[in-house]
């Protein structure tokens, strides 16, 4: 039972990171019909920002945390401005290829400008400290991740539900052209969606980088793929589904890794995909069914 609870908290900690990334991807998919494979750059670039700050002033995470979040927002908004704005209205396939293009350009820039090898920086001192609650031992990083993730999700949900800006984003995510007919400015809503997605990714990047403590050209690829998977199993385009998908993926990974026999633990990722395949047999639309209007 103790192990089960520990793994549950570990799964929520991982899942929270995936949920934040998936929510950003779902937001962008909603307003642009784009599965943004450049979203991982909102982790890659901040990773190098963290590395740079570590080089300059040491591993001061009071400085690194805001810098990582600001960098993620700027990267997200910049990719929209530099790349996606010019292919807006093109086919989904064109936008998908553009997102791959952005990813490969960013990777190439860091390979040439820094190094193809990973650059390490100092993790926070408390990262693997544990705390005992009711006889169960938890890693502090998991508890902080869960707490901050939930606070971020509550803040995001409040923005999306209580502010006119958030309601406009939700409207645009559901039917972009109808939102434009209501007077929602397309540039503003898309830029806002990218900024919000960047902020969510920035929070996710903080915890991802605290765990890995390294910057490399492909640093954002693995978390990006997890975010994409979470968004898809949640029901691509559904904001609620993205969050559910993120936590479900995190829990599935942790429990499968714990339950698979020692010599099969390496097959965890494969087993997760098998579970996802089974889910899609039962619910091809993912956890949440997305009602989406056809565009004119």
């Amino acid at each position, binding site marked *: 039972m103790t192990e089960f609870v520990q793994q549950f908290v570990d799964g929520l900690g991982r899942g929270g990171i995936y949920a934040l990334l998936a929510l950003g991807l779902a937001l962008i998919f909603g307003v642009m019909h784009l599965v943004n494979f450049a979203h991982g750059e909102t982790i890659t670039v901040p990773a190098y920002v963290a590395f740079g700050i570590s080089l300059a002033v040491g591993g001061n995470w009071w400085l690194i945390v805001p810098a990582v979040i600001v960098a993620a927002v700027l990267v997200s908004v910049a990719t929209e401005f530099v790349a996606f704005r010019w292919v807006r209205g093109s086919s989904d396939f064109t936008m998908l290829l553009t997102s791959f293009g952005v990813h490969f350009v960013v990777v190439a820039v860091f390979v040439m400008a820094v190094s193809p090898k990973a650059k390490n920086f100092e993790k926070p001192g408390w990262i693997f400290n544990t705390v005992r609650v009711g006889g169960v031992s938890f890693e502090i990083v998991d508890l902080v991740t869960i707490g901050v993730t939930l606070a971020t999700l509550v803040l995001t949900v409040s923005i999306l539900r209580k502010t006119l800006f958030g309601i406009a984003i939700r*409207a645009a995510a559901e039917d972009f052209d109808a939102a434009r*007919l209501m007077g929602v400015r397309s540039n503003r809503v898309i830029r806002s969606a990218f900024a919000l997605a960047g902020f969510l990714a920035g929070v996710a990047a903080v915890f991802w980088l605290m765990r890995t403590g390294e910057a490399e050209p492909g640093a954002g690829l693995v978390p990006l793929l997890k975010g994409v998977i979470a968004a898809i199993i949640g029901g691509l385009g559904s904001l609620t589904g993205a969050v559910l998908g993120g936590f479900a993926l995190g829990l599935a990974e942790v429990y499968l890794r714990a339950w698979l026999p020692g010599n099969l633990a390496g097959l965890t990722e494969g087993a997760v995909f098998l579970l996802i395949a089974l889910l899609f047999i039962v619910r091809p639309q993912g956890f949440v069914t997305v*009602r989406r209007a056809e565009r004119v």
Partner: protein
Amino acid sequence: MLGVERLTTRYGSITAIREVSLRVGAGEVVGLIGPNGAGKTTLLATVAGLLDPAAGRVELDGREVTGASPDRMLRRGVALVPERRRLFADLTVQENLLVAGITATGGERRERLGEVVELFPVLGQKWGAQAGYLSGGEAQQLAIARALMSNPRLILMDEPTLGLAPVLVDVVFELIGRLREQGRTLLVVEQNARRLLRAADRAYVLRTGSIVAEGAGDELLARPGLFEAYVGVGAGGEVPGA
């Protein structure tokens, strides 16, 4: 008020409307009828800014607005009630109306919310309900109420009675009459062509992307052979899909 000159819109290599010209004067209710596929929805979508024309001009109060984006057209006073309503199904009735009032100031928005609830009391009763769960009649009222939230001078209505029970069709036409009394200008595409011609000051008949007839509603109704020739059914019955 609205002038459309030789407007052509294409979907790839297919020409949906070809050199269409029409005028809508301030305070008029103008009908647009024609068989399915005639290009009625394309014409409204092009005027509203959802589609870019391949050629031609759109003028509003004498100023060219060809190719202006939908949000810009709305800010100039042109609102579209789209075909099949296109409500935000996951948003509540209140949220649908709030988004539709995004161009207004906070005070104006509150004032208009009060006005549309007065005009459509049923929406006040469904304030917190998701739009996706409204009945057809409620949904159509919400679609029209959304258009009113921007206080438009010209309302483009695309098939406002589509899929509604006859009693609700009466409600929609009654509403069109009330909007006319308020001095609003309307350009209406409607499947119930005879009913629209009776309600409209003037109308245009669109067929395979071109205007083939125009005139006062009564005059078009009385014109022998018009429906058989251009709309596709006998003069005695209603005109499905017109």
